[in-house]
């Protein structure tokens, strides 16, 4: 019997039919009987004491069914790493937009009217906006209340320094002393919104009996069940979170956003409540952008181009709350060596509170910022040493057997091949047209191994149903089906993939960390093996042939070498049902353990208009090692998406903030790329499957977003001869740079 080949072939996503028909359901599409509209009252001040909140007039307004403040939820705080964010503010507010109260009313107009009737008395406090000023002595304390309660000390907060880390590698001082040249540069990046088109939305339906149903746009709906059960002291079995389609997330929808508020409003009103952020709220107050950062690099090199030492200091501007900052700063400071051999280093990271909108994850969280700094400096150094930028990367690139700053060893590295491929494809060494420039950047990232479960059930009509708890953002259902089809040698059309609500879903990690296909794929393969084993056992009973003499395929269990002698899946189902009196379900866990370095490199060609400062991206080549491409179609899609988001990061996107107030509130002012801004992206997928892993999947979700901005910055330098060390490279910034040095290359 021929083995079917499903992995490695381009498969359209199984969710795409519903999506082109407009049938796919997102959280805001859920409508329940008697449903109310929930809205949040936000702080107008960056830093102020709350002296009094009077909700009496709002409560009296006709059509208002609930008005809540912190007192209605026991003044609790939440947070993914540090519980420093009140669900609703009490005592004080720390940024413009902090949630102070919430209402639920029969319609949106009434809800907004009710918000206007809530009277809050504030006493303004001196705010602090700049992260470097915030860690100076005497700066206003963002979390003085946490200190007063003795909690800040327990969390290890010092002043406005939320957390810090330092990792030494070799001997920095010795490395610097032995260097022929030392380069010191400071880079800045600004806040970037994830830019998903679906604003965060949640529907909560709390019943007085203690049961709760929630529909929410989130990257890990199973985690929401756990968090809400804990927060509202409910039995896990009674918290039903439904998976809905998610209209883009990119890290911005990992931790709960409006969920606790919606549940509180539903609990208070006794009615279902829907809350949908406006896009203005997404940008200015309730959304959670990519952290702004200041990055200081001091790098020592030998004349021959070898990097000897690196001192990196990464300052994250957290905004008002910690969010994911303390873990991201660690990963990103470690990324300061890039994919290069750096024998001596000191990698420092600081997370700093300021009175601003606070940030969270965004595709390869933190890495595009650090990569911009590291790869910009690589070109600065190469230029000074008179070495070709691509050669300089090849001299220093990590090789097999090298140790990374994390201490893990590079088992196999395709980095040098990747750099060469990217450089050759864009023609790094070829001459440029007038006003054009070329640049490249390389990156290293890592996937995240996690525990995952998949269940496979045999149905009476010989079809299969797969159960998974994945929040499918990236085509996970499609990849799972491909793997199970291939393992069992069954036509994928015979397989459905179901994502049930949390009361029935197999435990699956949130869709993050470039690990979804790796983790769920691993579990799918394990479950398929278990399923196949059961099929063979039952087949053996029916056919009276030992298990070892049997195989599966084409909807049958057959005798090897005599395929005519076979039991259909229908026979198997019947036999199993009659003898075992239970459904045939295979369950398997898989705990993936290996972290792979994910290497990539991108090269771009830009054209800079010297009159306007506008940068046009003419070409992007993106080379990424995915280990094994289960579905090349969705991998190309991941590369296209990551690159285009980071073209925005490089050139136009900025959540501009003045005196703590975000001044952009829509997509156009924000600078999101349109079809006129993004060129055709040339993807080159490399497959160097590691041994001993199912299929050799490594991961691809995040790396494509990492090196783009640095490659663009290097190409802009190549075009105009001036180095710009702050993103985004807006026409204003580029024009200023050109004028500042008198435009040597034009």
């Amino acid at each position: 019997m021929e083995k079917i080949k499903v992995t490695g072939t381009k498969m359209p996503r199984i969710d795409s039919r519903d999506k082109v028909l407009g049938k796919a359901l997102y959280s805001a599409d859920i409508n329940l009987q008697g449903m109310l509209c929930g809205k949040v009252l936000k702080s107008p001040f960056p830093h102020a004491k709350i002296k009094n909140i009077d909700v009496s007039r709002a409560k009296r307004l006709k059509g208002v069914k609930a008005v809540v403040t912190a007192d209605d939820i026991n003044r609790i705080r939440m947070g993914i790493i540090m519980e420093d964010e009140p669900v609703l503010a009490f005592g004080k507010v720390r940024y413009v937009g902090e949630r102070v109260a919430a209402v639920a009313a029969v319609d949106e107009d009434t809800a907004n009217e009710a918000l206007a009737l809530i009277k809050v008395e504030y006493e303004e406090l001196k705010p602090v906006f700049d992260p470097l000023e915030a860690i100076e002595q005497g700066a206003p304390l963002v979390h003085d209340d946490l200190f007063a309660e003795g909690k800040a000390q327990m969390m290890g907060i010092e002043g406005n320094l939320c957390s810090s880390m330092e990792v030494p590698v070799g001997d920095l001082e010795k490395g610097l002393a032995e260097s022929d040249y030392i380069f010191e540069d400071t880079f800045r990046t600004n806040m970037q919104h994830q830019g998903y088109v679906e604003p965060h939305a949640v529907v909560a339906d709390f019943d007085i009996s203690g049961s709760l149903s929630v529909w929410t746009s989130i990257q890990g709906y199973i985690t929401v069940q756990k968090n809400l059960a804990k927060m509202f002291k409910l039995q896990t079995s009674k918290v039903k979170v439904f998976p809905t389609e998610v209209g883009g997330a990119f890290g911005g929808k990992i931790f709960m956003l409006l969920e606790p508020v919606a549940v509180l409003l539903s609990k208070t009103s006794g009615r279902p409540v829907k809350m949908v952020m406006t896009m203005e709220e997404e940008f200015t107050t309730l959304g959670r952008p990519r952290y702004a950062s200041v990055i200081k690099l001091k790098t020592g090199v030998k004349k021959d181009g070898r990097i000897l030492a690196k001192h990196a200091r990464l300052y994250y501007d957290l905004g008002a709350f910690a969010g994911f900052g303390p873990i991201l700063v660690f990963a990103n400071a470690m990324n300061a060596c890039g994919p290069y051999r750096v024998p001596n280093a000191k990698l420092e990271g600081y997370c700093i509170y300021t009175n601003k909108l606070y940030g969270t994850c965004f595709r390869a969280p933190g890495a595009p910022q650090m990569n911009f700094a590291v790869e910009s400096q690589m070109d600065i150094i190469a230029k000074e040493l008179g070495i070709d930028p691509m050669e300089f990367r090849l001299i220093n690139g990590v090789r097999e057997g090298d140790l990374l700053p994390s201490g893990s060893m590079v088992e196999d590295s395709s980095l040098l091949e990747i750099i060469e491929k990217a450089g050759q494809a864009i023609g790094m060494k070829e001459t440029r047209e007038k006003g054009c420039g070329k640049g490249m950047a390389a990156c290293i990232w890592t996937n995240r191994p996690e525990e995952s479960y998949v269940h496979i059930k045999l149905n009476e009509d010989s079809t299969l149903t797969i159960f998974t708890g994945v929040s499918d953002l990236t085509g996970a259902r499609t990849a799972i089906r491909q793997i199970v089809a291939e393992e069992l040698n069954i036509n994928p059309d015979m397989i459905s993939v179901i994502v049930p609500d949390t009361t029935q879903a197999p435990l699956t990690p949130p869709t993050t960390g470039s690990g979804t296909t790796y983790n769920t794929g691993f579990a799918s393969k394990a479950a398929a093996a278990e399923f196949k084993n059961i099929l063979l056992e039952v087949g053996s009973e029916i056919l009276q042939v030992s298990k070892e003499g049997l195989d599966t395929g084409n909807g049958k269990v057959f005798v090897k070498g005599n395929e005519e002698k076979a039991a259909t899946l229908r026979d198997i189902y019947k036999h199993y049902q009659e003898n075992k009196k239970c459904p045939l379900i295979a369950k398997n866990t898989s705990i993936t353990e290996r972290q792979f370095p994910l290497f990539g490199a991108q090269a771009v060609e830009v054209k800079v208009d010297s009159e306007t400062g506008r940068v046009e991206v003419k070409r992007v080549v993106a080379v990424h090692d995915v280990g094994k491409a289960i579905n090349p179609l969705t991998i190309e899609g991941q590369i296209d998406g990551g690159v285009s988001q980071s073209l925005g990061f490089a050139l136009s996107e900025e959540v501009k903030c003045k005196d703590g107030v975000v001044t952009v509130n829509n997509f156009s002012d924000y600078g999101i790329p349109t079809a006129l801004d993004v060129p055709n992206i040339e993807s080159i997928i490399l497959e160097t499957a590691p041994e001993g892993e199912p299929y050799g999947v490594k991961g691809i979700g995040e790396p494509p977003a990492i090196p783009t901005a640095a490659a663009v910055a290097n190409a802009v330098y190549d075009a105009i001869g001036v180095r710009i060390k702050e993103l985004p490279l807006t026409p204003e910034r580029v024009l200023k740079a050109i004028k500042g040095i008198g435009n040597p290359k034009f």
Partner: protein
Amino acid sequence: MPGEGLKKGYFHMKKIIELKINGDFYEIAVKPSKRLLSVIRDDIGLTGTKEGCGKGDCGACTVLMNGKVVNSCLVLAIEAQGKEIITIEGVAENGDLHPVQQALIDYGAVQCGFCTPGIVLTAKALLDENPNPSEEEIRDYLSGNICRCTGYVKIVQAIKSVRG
């Protein structure tokens, strides 16, 4: 509600309007300030039309009005009277996908899918108007529809594949 109109002024008084959506007629009472998008999603219950920015920036709420692309968040429901409205639910006929819908699937141009209904309608309008658009014309036509997942790469490829 008697009295409410007087209290809040004329613009809050509801009017009965008749809308033709996907060939069906709907009689609905709306405030004059109500957006076509809200009527389609909330009153009629056709949730395939999405609300992204609510400001005419993103195109997620695209519908066709007399064959032309409009952002339904910027159109008042009362303005849509007497016009032919097509939403995403009205594009496929008897379950047969429009060639653009099939191409978007085949080319992997659908990721999160939130912009997809708007993209389908925009592409349909473009091809109805100009069966053989150049890539530049396609990109220009799509520039009012924001897609964050695909970088537009596969969307453009898909639309190119169904040119006349």
